[in-house]
C-alpha cells in the first residue's frame, strides 16, 4: 500500500526534511504543508510589517527592529553581532545554537526573535565574569579538555549550565540523556560528560563503563 502523501512528506521531514516530498501533497493539504501558491504569496508578502523587539542580552537591554520571521539566532548573530552562538543543523537537532531564555536552555534556531521580546537572553559571551574569570562550566570544559574542534562548545556549555540547574542530582546517564539534544560531531562526548559531572558535583568519575 502506498502511504498517503502527507505521510510521505512527514517521513521525509524526519529524514532531514526533503521538501520535494511535500510537492506531492494534494491540494487539501496545502494549508498545513504550504504548497501550491508559494510564488503568489511570496509576492503578496513583500510589505510585511517589522516588529520592535527588546531583549535583555547578557544583562544589557537591546532594542531592534526585525521581520517576524527573523530567528532568534539570526538576531543575535547578525543584528547584535554576538557570533559566539553557532548555527549547526538548522533543524533543532544539534544544539549548537543553544542560549538561555529566562535562564532555561533553548535552541535559538527554533524561536523567532519576536517570541523573545521582553526576555532575558544569555549567550556564551555573557557567562564569564567581567574580569574574564570563566564560568565554572567553562572552566570545567577547559580543565577536562571537553572540546575538539570547538564548534558545538558554546551550545554545549549553555545547555550544560541549564542542565545542572534543572537536575540537581545528575549522574553519568543523566548527563548523557540531558545533553542528547547537543551533538558533537568530533564525538568528544566523554570529556564533555566529565566536565559537566565535575560541575554537577556528583562524585562520579564520569567513566562510561555502565553505559547501556
Amino acid at each position: 500500500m502506498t502511504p498517503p502523501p502527507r505521510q510521505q512528506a512527514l517521513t521525509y521531514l524526519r529524514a532531514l526534511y526533503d521538501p520535494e516530498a511535500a510537492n506531492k501533497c494534494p491540494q487539501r493539504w496545502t494549508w498545513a504543508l504550504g504548497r501550491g501558491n508559494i510564488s503568489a504569496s511570496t509576492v503578496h508578502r513583500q510589505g510585511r510589517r517589522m516588529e520592535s523587539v527588546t531583549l535583555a542580552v547578557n544583562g544589557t537591554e537591546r532594542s531592534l527592529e526585525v521581520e517576524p520571521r527573523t530567528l532568534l539566532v539570526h538576531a543575535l548573530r547578525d543584528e547584535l553581532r554576538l557570533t559566539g552562538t553557532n548555527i549547526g543543523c538548522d533543524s533543532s537537532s544539534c544544539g549548537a545554537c543553544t542560549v538561555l531564555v529566562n535562564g532555561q536552555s533553548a535552541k535559538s534556531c527554533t524561536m523567532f526573535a519576536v517570541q523573545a521580546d521582553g526576555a532575558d537572553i544569555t549567550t556564551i559571551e555573557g557567562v564569564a565574569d567581567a574580569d574574564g574569570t570563566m564560568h565554572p562550566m567553562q572552566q570545567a570544559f577547559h580543565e577536562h579538555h571537553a572540546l575538539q574542534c570547538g564548534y558545538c562548545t558554546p551550545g554545549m556549555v549553555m545547555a550544560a549550565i541549564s542542565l545542572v540547574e534543572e537536575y540537581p542530582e545528575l549522574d553519568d546517564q543523566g548527563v548523557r540523556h540531558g545533553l542528547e539534544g547537543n551533538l558533537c560531531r568530533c564525538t568528544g562526548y566523554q570529556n564533555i560528560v566529565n566536565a559537566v559531572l565535575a560541575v554537577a558535583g556528583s562524585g562520579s568519575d564520569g567513566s562510561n563503563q555502565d553505559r547501556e
Partner: protein
Amino acid sequence: MIPASFDYEVAESAEHAVSLLAEHGDEAKLLAGGHSLIPMMRFRLATPTVLVDVGRLDDLRYINSDNGTVSIGALTRHSELEHSALLAESAPLLASVAALVGDPSVRHRGTLGGTLAHADPASDLPAAVLALGGTIVARGPGGDREIAATDFFAGYFESALADDEMIVEVRVAASAGGWNYQKFNRRAQDWAIVGVAVAEEGAGVSLVNMGSTPVRASAVEAAVAAGASAADAAAVAAEGLQPPSDLNADADYRRHLARVFTERALKAAGVA
C-alpha cells in the same frame, strides 16, 4: 532555511487568539512553543501568513487536581509536566512521558496543547492522553467544548479542532493505578518508531506511530478485560492497524515492535 514571511500577532487572551483565528481564517496558525511548527516553516512545509502567538498566555500554564480530575492548562510546557510533584502523584504517566520528549531544551519550549493540536501520530504525549482517556477542552467563538481524546485525532496532523478553535485545557482522571510507557527509537531525542502507553485505570492502551493518528489498541484492551495474559493480549496489538513504512521501519516490523513493546508495557504496568 528562513521561513516564508508572515504577520505576527500577540494574543492577549485565549478569546483574543480565537478572534484573530476567526479573522484570518485558515491562513493563520497558532504559535505556542513552536518546536513542531517552526521547523516545518523553516523547510517551507508550512507557510502560514499570520502567526498568532499564544505563548505569552501564562494563565493557561497550570496543573490542578480537584475531585479526582487533573486539569492542565494548554500552554503548560513539557518541562513543567516533567517536574510537577502534583502530576507525579496524580497522573504519573503524563509526567513520565513528558520527560521523554525531545531533549531538555525542547521541553522548555514545547507545550501540551501544542503537541496535541499538532496531532503527529509519532508524538509521545498525545498517546499518553489517549491511554488515560483524557478530555481536550477547545475554545471557539461560541465558547468552550469538550472533545474526548478518542475523538480528537482525525488523521496525519489533523485534529477535530475547527480553524477558529484553540485548546485551552486538558483533563485526565487522577489515577493511582499502574502505568507504563515504552518508547522505541534508534537515535537519542528522536521520535518513537513505535511507542506504547498503558494506563491501568480505564485499561487504556495506546500506540504511537502505528497509523495516521495515535490509536487506542482496542483489541489489546478487550483481551486484557477478558483476563488474557500479557503475551496473549500483546499478540493482537497490531490488529486492525495499518502502520506506516518508512526509513526506520516497514509496516511488518512496526507490527512486531508493537507486540513486543505492548507485552513489556502491560507487564511493567502490572495490568496483565
